[in-house]
């Protein structure tokens, strides 16, 4: 199964790229569903008591043995949760692409989406640092082509900017990877190997600091943290108006995961030393994103800055170096791709309707201007309702998945630095302000006269409703997802990520609704 989930989208992606016509949609859909099913099977095998070779969660084989590079994948709870989200959202990406993308572009579009899925699943599974880097950079290629081939007028510029930022960050990370292996004295780039060596003799703090910042630059580009975020708004604004590519881009925000998986356990002391500045940067990113989002006139740019703001919160949680905060971060990171992705798809639906009104004279991107048409809720009440729910999820209203993540983050950050927690809380207020203002200006106020704005159609329900359902379910009953996260988060303690004082709180439940006796799986 561990290979199926990756190979299905990979092979289907190439098959789709090479074929023509409407039939590719069915193939793409089948592949994405199959990949999700495989991931789900892997995730459920343990609670269901299924065992055997087929349900193995780890796999390791030699790749370039001379340099200690092996193909090592392992899906623990955290990896699986992200893999589930990725494969789940890909289904909707492919589904909506089938309705929205022009037929002659469809094979390329769906093919690239599937290739991206394969790359992302690889990123979350890699347990060899070089393998991680290869997946990390390889995923850039389909992402770049999605933007460059099917984006708006200024796409080339956005694509080059995006590419250079990612590669530059990636190279810094690569330097850190080579450094950490060289200094640890491990024989391979296998994460377990290096960690094992480091536990015996930790790196001197000077070396650790260099390596940590190498990792941080790589991941800060992808998180993104201020000031390395500047590629992101353009990336989203220039992507295909359907929002499908934006959704995939949202899934590609793997920086937070990278910090959790590599940077923190490999350089715990350096992380503790840098905690202050990183918290400040994260809090600033969160506030800055919210602030700038308030001033945006374009739906996608608004969403891009909202995303940056969220990522600031994720950063806050991670750098709280407190188990509760880190759990919250990962939770938020996983579920923000569902609501942000859902909102991008919704923006695609809005754009389609508005564009139809334009008679084609205006340029495509202006159709997403906020507030140019108002009072749309009168025409499309159901659409308005669902979008409002997604926004609620995004700004952390209780009852949705975002809330759980944000609360945990604040609990964690408060332990580390109350002032930073306060700054973070300000962000949620700001988020509510920009989200509701934008919502109000679009959907309420006096309806425009003589404008037809259709309500959701059947297939659009199929896309938005499941997302809202998932967000609500995991907002109310978070235990399954939290249980997937907890063992790996707790395991960070073994590598000295947490300060001594906070160590005992690992044992206490993260949020009171979780039973404390659930230890489904510990590391490997």
């Amino acid at each position, binding site marked *: 199964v561990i290979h199926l989930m990756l190979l299905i989208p990979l092979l289907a992606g190439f098959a789709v790229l090479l074929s023509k016509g409407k039939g590719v949609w069915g193939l793409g859909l089948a592949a994405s569903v199959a990949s999700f099913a495989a991931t789900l099977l892997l995730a459920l095998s343990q609670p269901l008591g299924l065992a055997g070779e087929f349900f193995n969660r780890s796999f390791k084989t030699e790749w*370039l043995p001379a340099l200690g590079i092996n193909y090592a994948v392992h899906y623990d709870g955290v990896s699986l949760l992200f893999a589930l989200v990725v494969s789940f959202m890909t289904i909707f990406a492919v589904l909506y692409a089938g309705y929205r993308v022009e037929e002659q572009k469809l094979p390329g579009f769906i093919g690239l989406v599937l290739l991206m899925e394969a790359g992302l699943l690889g990123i979350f599974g890699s347990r060899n640092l070089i393998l991680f880097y290869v997946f990390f950079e*390889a995923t850039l290629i389909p992402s770049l082509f999605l933007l*460059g081939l099917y984006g708006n007028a200024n796409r080339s510029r956005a694509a080059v900017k995006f590419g250079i930022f990612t*590669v530059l960050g990636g190279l*810094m990370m690569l330097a850190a990877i*080579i450094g950490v292996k060289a200094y640890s004295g491990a024989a391979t780039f296998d994460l377990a190997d290096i960690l094992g060596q480091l536990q015996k003799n930790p790196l001197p703090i000077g070396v650790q600091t260099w390596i940590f910042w190498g990792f941080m630059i790589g991941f800060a580009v992808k998180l993104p943290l201020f000031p390395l975020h500047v590629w992101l708004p353009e990336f989203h604004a220039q992507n295909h108006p359907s929002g499908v590519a934006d959704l995939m881009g949202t899934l590609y925000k793997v920086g937070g995961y990278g910090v959790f998986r590599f940077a923190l356990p490999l350089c715990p002391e350096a992380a503790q030393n840098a905690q202050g500045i990183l918290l400040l940067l994260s809090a600033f990113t969160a506030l800055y994103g919210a602030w700038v989002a308030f001033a945006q006139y374009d739906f996608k740019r608004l969403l891009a800055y909202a995303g940056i703001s969220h990522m600031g919160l994720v950063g806050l949680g991670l750098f709280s170096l407190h188990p509760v905060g880190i759990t919250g971060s990962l939770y938020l990171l996983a579920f923000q791709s569902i609501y942000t992705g859902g909102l991008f798809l919704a923006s695609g639906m809005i754009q389609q309707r508005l564009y139809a009104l334009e008679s084609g004279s205006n340029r495509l991107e202006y159709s997403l201007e906020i507030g140019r048409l108002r009072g749309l809720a009168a025409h499309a009440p159901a659409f308005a309702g669902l979008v409002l729910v997604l926004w609620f999820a995004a700004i952390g209203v209780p009852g949705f998945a975002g809330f759980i993540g944000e609360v945990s983050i604040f609990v964690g950050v408060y332990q580390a630095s109350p002032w930073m927690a306060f700054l973070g809380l300000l962000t949620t207020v700001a988020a509510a302000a920009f989200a509701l203002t934008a919502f109000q200006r679009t959907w309420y106020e006096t309806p425009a006269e003589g404008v037809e704005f259709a309500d959701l159609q059947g297939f659009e329900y199929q896309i938005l409703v499941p997302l809202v359902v998932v967000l609500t379910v995991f907002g109310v009953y978070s235990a399954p997802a939290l249980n997937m996260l907890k063992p790996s988060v707790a395991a960070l303690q073994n590598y000295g990520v947490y300060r001594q004082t906070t160590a005992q709180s690992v044992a206490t439940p993260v949020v009171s609704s979780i039973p404390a006796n659930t230890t489904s799986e510990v590391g490997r």
Partner: protein
Amino acid sequence: MTPPDVNFLALLPTAITLVVAALVTILGFHTTNRALGILGIVGLLAAIASSVLIWGQDLTTFANAYRADTFALGITIIVAVAGIFTLLVSLDQAEHPAFRGAVGSHEFYALLLYALSGTMLLAHANDLIVALIGFEVMSLAVYVLSAFQDRSESEEAGMKYFLLGSLASAVMIYGMALAFGATGSFNLDGIRTAITAPGFQNTMLLGIGALFILIGFGFKVSWVPFHQWTPDVYSGAPLVVTQFMGVAIKTAAFAGLLRIFGAGLPNLEAWVLPAQVLIAVTMLVGNLTALRQGNLKRLLAYSGVAQAAYIGLAVLAAPNLGWPAALYYLAAYTLMNAGVFAIISVLAKDDDGPDIDDLAGLAQRQPLLAAALAVFMLSLAGVPPFAGFWGKYLVFNAVAQAGYWPLVVLGGLMSAVSLYYYLRPVVVAYFGTTVNPELPVNPGGATRLVVALGAIGIVVMGLLPNLVFMWFQTATGVALR
């Protein structure tokens, strides 16, 4: 008197190439040019087969002046592949009016094969004199090849290359003489023994000699500031010849460089610091000037300068890490560069090749060609999962282990810069809204075969690096005992 120590088995790859070259020279008066081209390809395939035959045996001959170890044989195979690619492309161009037919003549094939035998000799040289002979055989043939077309740019290129090249050769020969004076030996093993022997006096003399040799090779691999000829010669010479120079000549020059400095003069202070400076400057200048090129062929010339710096890093590494890494890099580089030049040949209306902006809409007119272009360019930029990434990684890793961290960091930064200019042709070919209908698409199955082989090779070497690397890696340890 003992009979001379000649092991013909060790000579096999080079000898085959030389014999085929001679055959082509003679048969040129009796058969068609196309048949000669095919004969050349067959001969080079035989040379590859013979290299495989004696792989791993580490044979030596001529009193240890000629050494067929894995490093030499690996280089031989790489240049033979480069030669085959060149011959394949020239088969197509011989019949095409855009290239005035000169490249398909029998003198052309003969010179090409002589140049190849020179490159192989240089790769096998374990002796300064043998290296010099290989170096000169290869250079003289290529001087003529660059001037092979009756247009003024080509003649200018040939003349320029010849004048500057002879100067570089002269400097190098002087350096070799000084090294001999200092150590009393032309043989690399002998030189090394002399240096490491206690009480070695002539450090100064040897250092100057080593520097001069470094300059000679630095000219051939186009390190800054000895690169001035590169853009002019590259853009003036016939397309296939540029392809050949960019790949085979550079590979052979690196082989000589690595061999002489790795096996003969390891860790000599006199050249290590200058080499670092040269490489760092080359990285900066090559990459930054490549940013501003508008013509694809010139872009590749400057990118070649930058790539020469990356490969050159291997000189600084310990041979047991650096040599296999360089072999891998050169193998990948041969595939990608020959592939890109083959694409240029398909799209060229004359020997200048297309400008980058001319590529607009290529993805719609020639989807497979555009896809191959994207693969080559991303690989040249060092983006995984293509072979170029592993090449760069292996070399950087080897140099980092030797402790040259600043150079590695600089190389990483410059790779990111290079992504910008490598992506530009891809961006124009794929992301543009306009289609350029005037871009010629020349017929020619052999050139397309080169493109396909190169692209497949890059992907396979990228996904399964060990498939190739294990051969280089197991054996080069033997080369330096």
